[in-house]
């Protein structure tokens, strides 16, 4: 799993990447009340806004850590956005991406580098 400075993560799954927000981001947001996800088939470049995440007090854009086509979204999030707080880097995943350029992944931070960036 690797991390973007905008607090999303990406994880390889075969030819695809699973994408979500980091535990750090989920904890900073507080109770997540709404997640606006893209449609399957939508295409985005790396770092492009692909959705919105809302907590009681805040609205934040979601940036795609690996550019490509959305092939699946986590339907459960719609009914239960709190899943992001419960398990941000697991069951609270947001979408799966078929990458245009898999090398996007290499530009992301590893866990140590990301953790360091959030402590600053």
């Amino acid at each position, binding site marked *: 799993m690797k991390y973007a400075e905008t607090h999303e993560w990406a994880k390889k799954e075969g030819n695809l990447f699973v994408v979500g927000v980091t535990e750090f981001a989920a904890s900073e947001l*507080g*109770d997540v*009340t*709404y997640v*606006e996800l893209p449609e399957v088939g939508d295409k985005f470049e790396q770092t492009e806004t692909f959705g*919105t995440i*809302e*907590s*009681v*007090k805040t*609205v934040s854009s979601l940036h795609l850590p690996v550019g490509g086509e959305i092939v699946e979204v986590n339907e459960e999030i719609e009914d239960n956005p709190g899943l992001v707080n419960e398990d941000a880097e697991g069951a609270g995943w947001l979408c799966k991406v078929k990458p245009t350029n898999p090398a996007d992944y290499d530009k992301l931070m590893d866990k140590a580098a990301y953790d360091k960036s959030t402590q600053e």
Partner: protein
Amino acid sequence: MKQTPLRAVHEKLGAKMVDFAGWNMPVQYDSIIAEHNAVRNACGIFDLSHMGEFWLNGPDAMVNLQCICTQDIEKLSDRQIAYSPMCKPDGTIVDDILVYRWDTSTFMLVVNASNTQKDYDWIKSNLEGIVELSDSSDRTGLIAIQGPKAEEVLQKITNQRLKAIKFYWFTLARIADCECVISRTGYTGEDGFEIYCDIENTEKIWELLMEAGKDAGIKPAGLGARDSLRLEARLLLYGNDIDDTITPMEANLGWTVKFAKGPFIGSKVLKEQKDNGTSKTLVGFEMPKGPAPRHGYIVKADGKEVGHVTSGLKSPTLGKNIGLTYVPPKYSEIGTKIQVVIRDKDYDAEIIETPFYKR
């Protein structure tokens, strides 16, 4: 940034702090929704030491308040409280305040933190006769305990019989060896109390309340929960729902405007609005689908823009999106369909009865 006397307490609790009107305030400790629910189901305590407290003293205090406030302060008994807008001559709202009547020549005024200086200057510039205004905000701590268990918890640590204090009345009381003012007031839609004390006693009273409320499930609650609780109860927030471009008549605060007492600042315009109506009126709406409506979002009806959301959220108690907006009177009927524009998409909403939540 200004600090309340409870700064160390908030830090110890791991609160997330934000700048609110120049004050370093806790917005949440753990979870806004958990804090919200604690107040609805048990009790929560809030640090409100950022609020402003003024004293108005002197034989002409009453007659001045009658002129500055829209409420009829003479109708209050000693130890009774009024919620009142203060208006400019054009009827728009300088602030909404609480007036605590100690006796006919002694009043405590509680004002919004964001308006403290503005209010002081406004009141000062309108005073006539033998009357003195003083600002005791820097010496006053304020803690609110709110929720169905608030009375039971507070009763454990005070000598005064709380049952005897009615809604919007206050008393002098002791908590341990600390003298304080306890009023049955709040901003949550629940039963509860606000405790005014010397600033150096604030932390002690907070800790005593936390200890006394342990079994009842007391939770510290931040500004986030305060906002969601007040909105469900349709209590207005100055700067969001009302400001110096809005009159009490437009904000549905007509019940606080007492023309029978004689002329007061703004009365001419307000009377005219009462008789002839206003061009817009504050209504509540619900929005079944979509993200939460928020301050500033455009409201449409009949395909055109008719107003803006002043406050909105996904209500933790009701589990649905709710909000307030000003609309022209013809769209204010219960059941009227409107749309809220969020990120270029229209979401259907409907005018509903308020308050959204009633205990």
